[in-house]
């Protein structure tokens, strides 16, 4: 089950303060990067929910994000729905797609689950690529942003939009924590540790998996809606399996199953990508080598490594205080 430790609170506080300060001070390019970080962070939160707490390593979360983006694009730009309605509908659609995928794949485990989700993701990609209604490989353009002029905020301004995305990230994080702490989330973690026992206890395990997968898909859909509003354009590239793969890389670099770690991972990944791209066009090589090194080191990502170090540093103190208790008794 997910718990907040003092270290996690501290990291969250640092992240929130840093991002807010960046949003207040950054120039145009910095705000673009900040928005990119916030959107990626929402996506990896959704992925960590199922992969880190349910053992469902999904390679279709990029596609689910794409479904959200396309649904919003089509509803808002082509069907002419009001942006808030289109947003809600897009999130619901990606959640529904996700629930169905989760329900179908619930029986598969390990590598088969990865392959099955990959197949569904590619299915969505091919459909978007070939469908004339979705603009084929030209994509859909002219996507409006949410209109908040009623409360005096213009989201077409880079700074306002970055703050809006950060707010959405905070909301997504809150939702993920609530879901993981609920009975549903605890059941999911139980299933990850021992599915047969949970079934013997009387749980309908595929329903639990599908439900959490659906909720995770809604969060991924939110990331997609924001991505569509950010670049005001969607193309099939958004659904490619490499997007899902990159999201998985971010989760692993940050720390699987820590929820805070992937946020750290998202910040590091986007900053690293831009820094390396400034120096050399071969940033994939650097990311690849870092990924191999992190996995070989057997640490649970950057944040997992820090947590393990802090735990080791605290461990002797816990033992000594227990000894004192024994003495006093």
């Amino acid at each position, binding site marked *: 089950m997910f718990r907040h430790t003092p270290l996690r609170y501290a990291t969250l506080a640092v992240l929130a303060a840093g991002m807010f300060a960046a949003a207040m001070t950054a120039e145009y390019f910095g705000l673009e990067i900040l928005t990119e970080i916030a959107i990626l962070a929402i996506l990896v939160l959704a992925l960590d929910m199922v992969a880190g707490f349910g053992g469902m390593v999904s390679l279709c979360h990029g596609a689910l994000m794409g479904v959200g983006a396309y649904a919003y694009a089509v509803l808002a730009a082509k069907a002419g729905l009001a942006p808030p309605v289109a947003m809600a509908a897009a999130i619901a659609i990606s959640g529904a797609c996700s629930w169905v995928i989760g329900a179908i*794949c619930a029986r598969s485990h390990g590598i088969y689950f*990865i392959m099955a989700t990959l*197949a569904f993701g590619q299915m969505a990609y091919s459909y978007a*690529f070939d469908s004339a209604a979705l603009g084929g490989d030209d994509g859909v353009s002219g996507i409006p942003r949410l209109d908040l002029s009623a409360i005096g905020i213009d989201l077409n301004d880079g700074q306002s939009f970055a703050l809006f995305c950060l707010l959405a990230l905070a909301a997504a994080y809150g939702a993920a924590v609530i879901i993981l702490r609920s009975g549903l989330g605890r059941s999911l973690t139980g299933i990850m540790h021992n599915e047969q026992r949970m079934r013997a206890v009387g749980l309908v395990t595929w329903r639990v998996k599908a439900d959490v997968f659906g909720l995770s898909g809604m969060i991924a859909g939110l990331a997609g809606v924001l991505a569509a509003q950010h670049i005001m354009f969607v193309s099939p590239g958004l659904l490619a399996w490499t997007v899902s793969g990159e999201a998985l890389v971010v989760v692993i670099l940050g720390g699987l199953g820590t929820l805070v770690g992937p946020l750290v991972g998202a910040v590091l990944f986007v900053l690293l990508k831009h820094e390396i791209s400034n120096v050399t066009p071969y940033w994939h090589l650097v990311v*690849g080598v870092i990924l191999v090194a992190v996995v070989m080191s057997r640490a649970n990502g950057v944040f997992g490594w820090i947590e393990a170090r802090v735990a080791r540093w605290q461990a002797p103190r816990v033992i000594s205080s227990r000894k004192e208790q024994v003495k006093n008794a």
Partner: protein
Amino acid sequence: MSQDLGFWAVQTLNALQLSMLLFLLSIGLTVIFGLMHFVNLAHGSLYAFGAYVAASVASVAGFWAGFIAAPIAVAVLGLVLYVTLIKRMRRSGPMPQVLITFGLIFALLDLTRIIWGDLALGIEVPAILSGRVSVLGVEYPAYRLFIIALGAAIYAGLASVLARTQIGAMIRAGVDNDAMASCLGINVERLFFLVFCMGCALAGLAGAVAAPLLSVTPDMGLQILIPTLIVIVIGGLGSLKGAIAGSLIYGFVQTFGAALAPQLSSILIYALLAAVLVTRPTGLFPAKG
């Protein structure tokens, strides 16, 4: 009517040619998985590497030199990867393996870009195979027929090695139960190594064969990876029969889907894959029952 017949003949040959190319790739991947339980997502990158080696060598010494050099070069690369990374990752679960090989995809992609640049390379079909041959009443490029024949020959060769020789029996024993096989005195570790290098060599061969048909680009490995994975998941991991069946299913569904129902063709194969996974989660012909 004869025109109609010609259409079917050409499509069948196209499907066979695609199937055989995929078979060359998937057999290496599937046997490596069956024997070592190792998921090598970088298999597509090895194929791209093979294609590049073939193109470079062919531009100097002709097609056949590249055809021979590519499998050797890729087997050597596989050897290096095995010794440095894969041997250590053997005992970890599928997740770290997927990630390690995913990192390798990134690294190899940029390495090929650094060595060979971003521009697409092409190689000429050898003179002896450049013509067209009349088969089943249609003119068909000889080179594509060569691919079909090569795939069939390799299938026959592998099938007889696996079924009739001692090393084949050892491999089958290893796939079935590696702990028991090593108790019986089979050096499973060395067997793994051998099979891994063979799989890599076949990926390199596939790259060399595909190079004249497709242009050689850095992302060709990424493009072929998904079809290869679909083949082995439909066919079932770890078996020769699964690899050939999966390749044929993919080749025919893809080719005839594109010819007969172009709107549906792209999602047809994925829908089929989903159906297979739902009804038979371990594929049609898994190595273990």
